[in-house]
Each structure stands twice: as C-alpha cells, then as structure tokens.
C-alpha cells in the first residue's frame, strides 16, 4: 500500500466514526446503572453519584438469566468443540489430499455456504418434532454443529501450510491423523484462534434457531431469554413503570454484551489476525 503519513482530517474522521460505533455500547452499559427515572429525564447525561443496581435486581427477579447463561455455556462447549475439531479436519482433507469425488463433495460444501438458514427452519423444526427433540439440548446443538463456512475457511488457512512439512511428518512415520494433529494444528494455531472466537460469537449470539427450537424456560439460551423479556414488557408504557422496564431491559442487554466484549478485547489480536488470515484475498 501507499503509506503517506495520515493528516489531521484522517484522524478526525476515524475518531468521529469510532465514537459513533462505540457510543451505543457505552450508553447502554452506563444507562443500565442509572436510576430508572434518569434514563427518561436525562438520557444524555450520566451522573456516577447516583449509580444503582436496581435495574439488575429487577431483571434478575423477572427472567431466568442464570439458566440462559448456563444453557448458552453448555451449547457453546459442545457445539464449539465439534466445530473446532471437525471443521479443520475436513478443511485439511480438502486442502491437502487429492481424492476421487473431491470436487463434487467440495461443491456441496460451497452450496450449503450459500443456502439461507431460513429455508431450513420449517423442515428442521418438523424433523425435531418427529424425533421428539423439541425442547432438548440435542436440538440446540446438533444442527449446524459442523458448518460449511468453517470448513471453507479452514481449507483456505491450511492450503498455506507447506506440503514439505506434511511429507516430513509422514517420513517420520506419523499416521494420517498424526500429521494433522502434530504438524497442521500447531502451524495453523492463529487461524484456529480466530475460528474459536468467531464460533463463540456466532453460537453465543445465535437467535433464530434457538427461538424456534425451544420454547420451555428450562432450555432457553441467553438470547431467547432476552427476547422474551423484551416481548413481555414492550406493552407496558405507563409513567414511572415504563422507566423501570427500560432500566431492566438495559441491564439485561448489558449483562449479555459484557462477557463477549471482554473476550473480544482480551483476544482481539487473535480475532482480527485470524479473520485476516482466512478471508478472501483481493
């Protein structure tokens, strides 16, 4: 690239944009610890002296947010584990082997990449009810547990690993899986870290499938718990209660945002480099 030293207009433009991007997040979190009435009377201001956890207390009393977190964590652990194990393995097969039927099989991977999730919602839901899986963890975890996008991405990442390394491993007597585990995995660690963060984000934030697949409180993921809160209270728009309701909503939204934001800030280098490593080059 042509790297001229950037001038003040560049910094001003980027600075204003960055503030616009961060402001809604800061506003939601800071307003969630305001007294309810102030969210309405003084939405722009933020007086630290009045900080209160009332919104959080009301939210905890109203919705099973703990259950939501626990369910999300469970789905995250199993579904994330499956993605991180099977997708690089399949990506490795497509990147480094030549085998009959390869093009057809990879074509299917690419086609599923283009398939809108919404097409599958109705038949998947019917399949779940035929299997007796509605309101089970199986329904939340198994569909999409090994996804085409991650395979496609891992194939890109693994294609960059030199073939000589793999052959050296084979000469040393490693099995085919041994080559993957002992040579490929260590080399693509940045790409794997990126995949881990992206998968975590997708599963944590997933909404469309969980909202149709489970409707009992016991199995609701965090996002579903959040959306039911919004629907239960969106009708309530009277005076002071209205402010309390908002305060509750902001507390719930903030508590859902904060864990992932923390992970992102801690791992941002891996996250950004991971995506940069795997995406389509110009």
């Amino acid at each position, binding site marked *: 690239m042509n790297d001229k030293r950037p001038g003040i207009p560049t910094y001003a433009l980027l600075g204003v944009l960055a503030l616009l991007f961060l402001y809604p997040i800061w506003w939601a979190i800071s307003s969630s610890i305001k007294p309810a009435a102030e969210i309405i009377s003084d939405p722009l201001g933020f007086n630290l002296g009045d900080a209160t956890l009332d919104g959080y207390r009301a939210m905890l009393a109203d919705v099973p947010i703990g259950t939501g977190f626990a369910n999300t964590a469970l789905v995250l652990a199993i579904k994330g584990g499956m993605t991180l194990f099977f997708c690089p393995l399949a990506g490795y097969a497509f990147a480094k082997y030549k085998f009959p039927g390869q093009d057809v099989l990879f074509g299917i991977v690419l086609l599923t990449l283009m398939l809108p999730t919404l097409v599958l919602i109705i038949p*998947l839901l019917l399949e779940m009810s035929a299997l007796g899986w509605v309101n089970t963890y199986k329904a939340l975890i198994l569909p999409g547990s090994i996804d085409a996008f991650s395979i496609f991405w891992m194939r890109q990442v693994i294609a960059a690993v030199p073939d000589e390394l793999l052959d050296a491993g084979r000469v040393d007597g490693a099995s085919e899986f041994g080559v993957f585990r002992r040579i490929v995995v260590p080399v693509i660690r940045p790409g794997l870290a990126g995949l881990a963060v992206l998968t975590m984000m997708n599963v944590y934030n997933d909404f469309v499938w969980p909202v149709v697949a489970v409707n009992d409180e016991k199995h609701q993921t965090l996002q579903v718990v959040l959306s039911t809160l919004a629907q239960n209270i969106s009708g309530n728009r009277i005076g002071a209660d209205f402010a309390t309701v908002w305060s509750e909503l*902001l507390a719930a939204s903030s508590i859902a945002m904060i864990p992932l934001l923390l992970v992102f800030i801690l791992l941002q280098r891996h996250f950004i480099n991971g995506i*940069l490593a795997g995406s389509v080059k110009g």
Partner: protein
Amino acid sequence: MSALLQRRAAPYVFVLPFFLVFAAFGAYPLAYALRLSFTRWTGAGEARWIGLGNYTYLLTNPEFWASLGNSSIMWLLVVPVQLVAGLGAAVLLSNAKLRLRGVFRVAFIAPFVTPLVAMAQVWIVVFDRDYGLVNHALNLAGLPDVGWLTSTAWSKPTLALLFLWKTTGFAIIILLAGLQSVPGHVYEAADLDGASRARQFWSMTVPLMRRSLSFLLVIQTLAVFQMFAEPFVVTQGGPYGSTTTAGLYLYDHITASDLGTGAANSFLLVILVFALSLISVRLLRARDE
C-alpha cells in the same frame, strides 16, 4: 493397515462427519421442504397435495411482494453504503503509519461482537419517539421529534442503521484482508504518473479489490434478505408492515401454521437471492472489463 491404504481412506474419514450432519440436518430437511412446498399443511393431520398452489398464491399475493419490496429497500439502504464506506475506512486503517491503528480497529469491530438481540433492545430505547435519546438530542438542538420506529418513512432507515452499525466492522476486516494483497508498487507507479488519491481509489483500489467486494456483496445480500432478529425484536414488522422483511414474512407462516406456504416462500427466496448474487457479482466484474 498399509500406509498407502490409510492415505487413500483418510480424506473420506476426515470429511465424513460433516456429510453425516449435513445429510441429517441439511439435505433431508431440504428435500422434505421441497415436497412440503407442494402441499397445504397446518402441521397436524394430512398434508394435501396442491401442486404449484403455494407458489401461485405467493406470487399473486401483495403481502409477499411487499416483503420483498421492504427487503429490497433495506438492501439499497445498507449494501452500497457499507461497501463504499467500509472500503474507505479499510484504506485509512491499512496505512502502516496510522497511529492508534489497533484502537480504531477494535472500535469498529466491537459492535460486530455484541449480541444482536441485546442491541435491538437498546435501539428500542434509544429511538423511542417520546422518551428516546435521539429525539431528546434533537429537541435540545431545537428540532422536532421524529417517529423513528413509529412512522413508515423512518422505520426502515432506523433498522438499516442498526444493521449497518452492527456489521460494518465485519466488512472492514474482510476488506482489510483484501487490501493486504494489493501490491504497493502499483501505487508507486501511479504516484509517479501524478494520479490523484481519489483517482487512485476509483481506478486502482476498487478494481483490485473486486474479489473481496463481490464476496461481501454476496454475503451481505444473503444477510439482508434473511434479516429477521432486527424487525422481530424492534418493530415486530410494523408500523403498517413497513419492516416486514422477507425473513420475517417467512417466519409468519410458521406462527400461522401455514407450513406449505412457508416452505414455498423459502424456495422463492433462495431463487431470488441466488439471482441477485449472480447479477451483482457480474455487474461488479463488468465495470472494469
């Protein structure tokens, strides 16, 4: 097992788990949905074969076209803005001499990491007509209230803003990755020829980035036509159906137990999205050929 045999079998074993999951939760439901789209079925009792009935019903139904119209307007509000602004931001951020580069990157990508449902709720509060932050700020500036979520004119731009806020960071990273592979000497030559920065952007950066741009175009076109959580949480499709996107309209068939029509609607949507992706990628390619 001999090493050679193992080596022949290995790739099939490695890709097998994906194909098992795909067969069970992708191919089977897809085939089932195709069959379902030719029947009338409420989810209970017998499904009745009605041939192309669901398709002709949808294609002659104004609500179906309205949902496509809503999604098309959303597309226009989101995708061109995102591609141009995202590329501009990516060019600025790719400059190695830019200070605070890491901070800016984190700031732009942070919204992408926040849960959509949580931010959709924040949007309800921020853009409320009577008590929201935005109208409060407008009033302070001496301007009247705007019905961001209650007027049919503003509901779409307000949701489009949520979508843009949430996903532009993703577009920026994809474009940054693309920019990394643009060779620097191309620009040095252009500098020697005295080409202006704007000229370089339009006649060099944009064409050189066309693969990244078409990738984003396809991904974001898919995303906009499937847009669901934003209208579902923020506006429930209102006011007056102005934010009933193609994705939300499809979901309405599930809640109405009109499953055959829903399945047909899915396939019409797939065909449309494929066609749109093809056309837009072609257009992008044609510009510099």
